[in-house]
């Protein structure tokens, strides 16, 4: 440590130079009596450093208290608005949830495994990155686009598939019928699918779900790559399975959510309510199993085949279905910053009042800019308008 450093890094010395009070002045007066040899150098350094004195702006004496009163008023307002915040969040709760995150090679394994759903899907499925709208692939080889803005498909009525506003009459007795349909959801979209047993599935962006068009066998099963939220009709006689490459989720209770994206190294399940069982694939007797209780997450490591259980907030894993991720007391400006970066757009705020508005809740960019905007509009009572290429005004 150099001499200079010894002085500069000494908080007392710095205080003596820049913000001297009587105490520190006194200290150095005493110090120099003891160490007169240091005085000249230290005083010189002090005087030199003092040229770094900053020019300060003064403020009115009443300013601090005025600002504090405003802060108090803000706090009171905030506390009283908490009730409505809680109400907003409670609307977003769901009955039962399980999330699965699935790693690579699902379709390779799935089709190689001799399942009857056929290779015909696979090529189309690989095109998911180039797809704009979600598409439903029927077992007879035909396909149909699932139109927005609702993106809904229903198998609830026998021999009928409702896709958006259209109804497709289906004759399942055709000989070439492989018995399984597939829903492929393009990036930035989300499709709600009602299965023949009236169970509901929200299939997330970039996901594929293969399912029987009737659930007449002993078990109900679907095959998932990507993410899906399942609201399963309870039927103890006919258990419901969500299958993935390495493990399956068996629904014991009522409802759950499954998410399975190929990129991930682990497969995860998160349960909100009810009961599900995680089972390792193809190991009937030796495979690992785990039963989840609400607010637990099971992570299945595909390398080690270990299942780890952790306590989690289910909402963080399941609220994507509403197009939401967790936002904790962030200002609209913060939130807009994130939206701007993600969608590579520019948002101007016209209404100064709203800019500081704090929101808590959930937001998901996967659903697409329009949906994100709609959600923000709903939450804030504001409005987005396009004012130029990739430029939007919020007021």
């Amino acid at each position, binding site marked *: 440590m150099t001499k*200079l450093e010894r002085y500069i890094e000494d908080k007392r010395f710095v205080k003596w130079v820049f913000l001297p009070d009587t105490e520190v002045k006194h200290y150095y007066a005493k110090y120099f009596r003891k160490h007169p040899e240091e005085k000249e150098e230290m005083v010189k350094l002090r005087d030199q450093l003092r040229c770094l004195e900053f*020019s300060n702006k003064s403020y009115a004496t009443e300013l601090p208290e005025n600002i504090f009163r405003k802060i108090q008023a803000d706090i009171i307002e905030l506390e009283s608005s908490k009730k409505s915040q809680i109400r907003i969040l409670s609307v977003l709760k769901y009955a039962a949830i399980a999330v699965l995150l699935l790693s690579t090679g699902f379709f390779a394994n799935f089709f190689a495994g001799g399942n009857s759903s056929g290779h015909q899907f696979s090529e189309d499925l690989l095109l998911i990155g180039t797809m704009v709208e979600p598409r439903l692939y029927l077992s007879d080889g035909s396909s149909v686009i699932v139109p927005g803005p609702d993106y809904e498909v229903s198998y609830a009525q026998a021999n009928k598939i409702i896709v958006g506003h259209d109804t497709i009459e289906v004759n399942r007795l055709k000989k070439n019928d492989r018995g399984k349909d597939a829903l492929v959801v393009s990036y930035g979209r989300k499709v709600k699918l009602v299965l023949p047993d009236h169970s509901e599935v929200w299939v997330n962006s970039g996901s594929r779900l293969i399912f029987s068009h009737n659930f007449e066998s002993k078990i109900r099963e679907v095959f998932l790559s990507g993410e899906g939220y399942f609201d399963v009709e309870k039927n103890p006689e006919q258990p419901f399975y969500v299958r993935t490459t390495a493990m399956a989720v068996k629904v014991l209770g009522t409802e759950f959510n499954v998410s399975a994206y190929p990129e991930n190294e682990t497969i995860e399940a998160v349960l909100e309510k009810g009961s599900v069982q995680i089972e390792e694939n193809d190991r009937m007797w030796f495979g690992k199993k785990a039963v989840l209780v609400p607010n637990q997450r099971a992570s299945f490591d595909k390398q080690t085949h270990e299942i780890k259980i952790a306590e989690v907030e289910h909402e963080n894993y399941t609220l994507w279905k509403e197009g939401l991720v967790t936002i904790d007391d962030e200002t609209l400006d913060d939130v807009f910053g994130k939206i701007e970066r993600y969608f590579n757009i520019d948002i101007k705020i016209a209404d100064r009042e709203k800019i500081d508005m704090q929101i808590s809740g959930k937001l998901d960019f996967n659903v697409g800019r329009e949906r994100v905007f709609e959600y923000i509009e709903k939450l804030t009572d504001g409005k987005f308008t396009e004012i130029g290429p990739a430029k939007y005004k919020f007021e």
Partner: protein
Amino acid sequence: MKDWRQTWLKFKGGDMDAFHRIYVAYFDKLYAYGSKLTNEHSVLEDSIQELFLQLYTRRSHLREDVNLEYYLLKSLKLTIYQRLRRKERIIPSGLANEDHESSLFKFKIENADEQTDKEGNDELLQALSGLDPKQRELLYLKFYNSLSYKEIGDILGINPDSAKKQVYRIIKKLKHNFRGFSIELFLYVVQHVKKS
């Protein structure tokens, strides 16, 4: 300082008096720093208001051993920059034009009038005016606040080593420019400045 921790814990528990004590204890320091980051009074005052509201709402998330001074200074800077950015309606990087920038973190000595004795402090003033706003801010954070180099580096977005090196580089350079005139002359200049 020993009952400061007590105050902090009370505040975390929601005690308004403790909150007010913290506010009073830091107002001056925050105002001094903030007024160097922006010339807009309304932005500064709104930012202080927002900062303490945030402090209050996030109090339960704050660590007990947080260096409050660092936390508040950093948060104030972020809040001010955010507000300026919003106000300007421009993308984060462009905070202010150069004219605006040069009016921030002014040294007292620079406020001297044109006719100030140029013989003695010319070189020094030149050296000082050669410092960019970030270097000035660095010196300010170092000498007017009790922050570690790590904390200073964090606020300025540079690494701690570089923060420390820069402080010494600037001081050595200034010391060099002191040569050639006496303390008396320097004090004369300072007095002159104070009068004006």
